[in-house]
């Protein structure tokens, strides 16, 4: 059952990702990205990361992508214009892509150290309690440093977006 769900949502994620690149309209692309995010959330859920799955759904699929779509609608971005394909892209694109996939597959399979097989349901520490305990006990310093970094980013964004007041 888990394997079937994994294959189903992995396939949806890949199809949405390809569709994201192929679509010419920004809204279609953005919605495909929502599809990718949503299926990734399901994959996290299958691997036992309940909190991560919901964070993915709320933050990425919910808040960030809504903001993307909001901006696209606000700017009224139309269908993108396609330039004539480059000669290199037409003839060498597919072979180069296959070569890249081959190299990556080789590295993952033979060069990287072997990891054990994934068993669905074996990981039990994805619930909010364990995540919270880890964040606020074991990894408190990195967590706080990250929050300061994010604060700096927020202030930077406000400073950049602020209108000049004379």
């Amino acid at each position, binding site marked *: 059952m888990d394997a079937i769900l994994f294959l189903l949502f992995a396939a949806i994620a890949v199809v949405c990702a390809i569709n994201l690149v192929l679509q010419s309209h920004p*809204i*279609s692309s953005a*919605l495909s990205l*929502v599809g990718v995010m*949503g299926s990734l*959330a399901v994959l996290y859920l299958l691997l036992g990361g*309940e*909190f991560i*799955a*919901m*964070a993915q*759904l*709320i933050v990425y*699929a*919910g*808040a960030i992508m*809504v*903001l993307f*779509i*909001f901006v696209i*609608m*606000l700017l009224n971005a139309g269908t993108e214009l396609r330039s004539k394909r480059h000669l290199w892209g037409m003839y060498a694109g597919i072979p180069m892509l296959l070569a890249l996939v081959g190299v990556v597959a080789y590295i993952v399979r033979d060069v990287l150290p072997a990891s054990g097989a994934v068993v669905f349901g074996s990981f039990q520490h994805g*619930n*909010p309690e364990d995540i919270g305990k880890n964040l606020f006990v074991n990894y408190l310093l990195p967590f706080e440093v990250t929050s300061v970094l994010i604060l700096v980013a927020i202030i930077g964004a406000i400073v950049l977006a602020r209108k000049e007041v004379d």
Partner: protein
Amino acid sequence: MNFLVLSLIKAAVVAFVLMTTLAYLQWIERKVIAHIQLRVGPRRVGPHGLLQPLADVIKLLTKEDMLPSHVNKVFYFLAPFIAVFFALIAISVIPFGGEISIGPIKTAMQLTDLNIGVLFILGLSGMGVYGVALAGWASNNKYALLGGLRSSAQMISYELPMAMAIAAPLLMLNTLSFRQLVDAQGGYYFGIIPRWAVFQGPFPQIISFFLFVIAAFAETNRVPFDLPEAENELVAGFHTEYSSMKFAAFFMAEYANMVTVSCVATLLFLGGWQPLFPAEYGSKFIPTLIFLLGGAICLFHGFNPVRPLDRITLPVAGIVFIGIGAAFLIPIVATILLPLFWFSAKVGVILFLYIWIRGTLPRFRYDQLMNFAWTFMFPVAIANLFITGLLVALT
């Protein structure tokens, strides 16, 4: 296999009850608003207009499905489905009562108890924005687009204070599962004051409750925050170009969202199915009393009819009420019905608040709406969360 059959039966029951509630919620809303405005409301179809929802469904099903020109067809058809899907699926994590046992079967009055139930609801409410935003954008209509844009901005803005308001009681109750949330609110202070989150120490979450209810009004696009469909400015906002079943889908999504949000408010703040005061002071006789009183009023008006039809309909309603009231006195039935009564009573009060406010308050202006969210609700929510956290840490 047993689990599968049981789940299917429960899903069927919940779906049926939810659909009936949605249909009759609209009837109740029309009746209540009519009485607020000194009208009588729907009363042509069936006794007291009780069959009006059925008539509306038939009307919406058989209406011509218009397709405006130059719409983006895929998204135009997808939007109502997205809206209604994410609105209806949220009911699957809402518990309606504790554990019950019918014969050998023991089950919880809930479809599924997630240990991330609250986050699940938040995630779904975030996804629901797509239905409204896409509907506005795909309709090829400037009013619809403005409605869609307004609603996206409004929902993003009010999601923040809502999440903050939810976080405060979670700090005290210490869990994200709805069932455990309600269990953590059981018991009484001094044997009489319920330990609901709005009364519970160290910091009663009354501010948080009001913030949540206000944000929930904005999230569900209801008066006084119904700017996405402001009739006198935007025709009908994001669903201007939708007719027949697609319009009905948006309508259903709005009412389903109302029900979900009321359920969440009940579970988080009002103690779910925990009674208002302990059973030893007779809280288990409250439903019987209410239904008997309702039955008596119906019978009285049935025997002194204002309209000729009342001679038949009101006594029937009265006998049904008295029957329900009597059912609460049978011990085995009462264990199932009592939690349901308290849960639906609290949800009903919040839903009535929705309707009441729709009947009395005017709409916000758009800048007022945004100012209210960012300069009032957000700081108050942060302060509330901070004080709650501090007091929880100290005790």
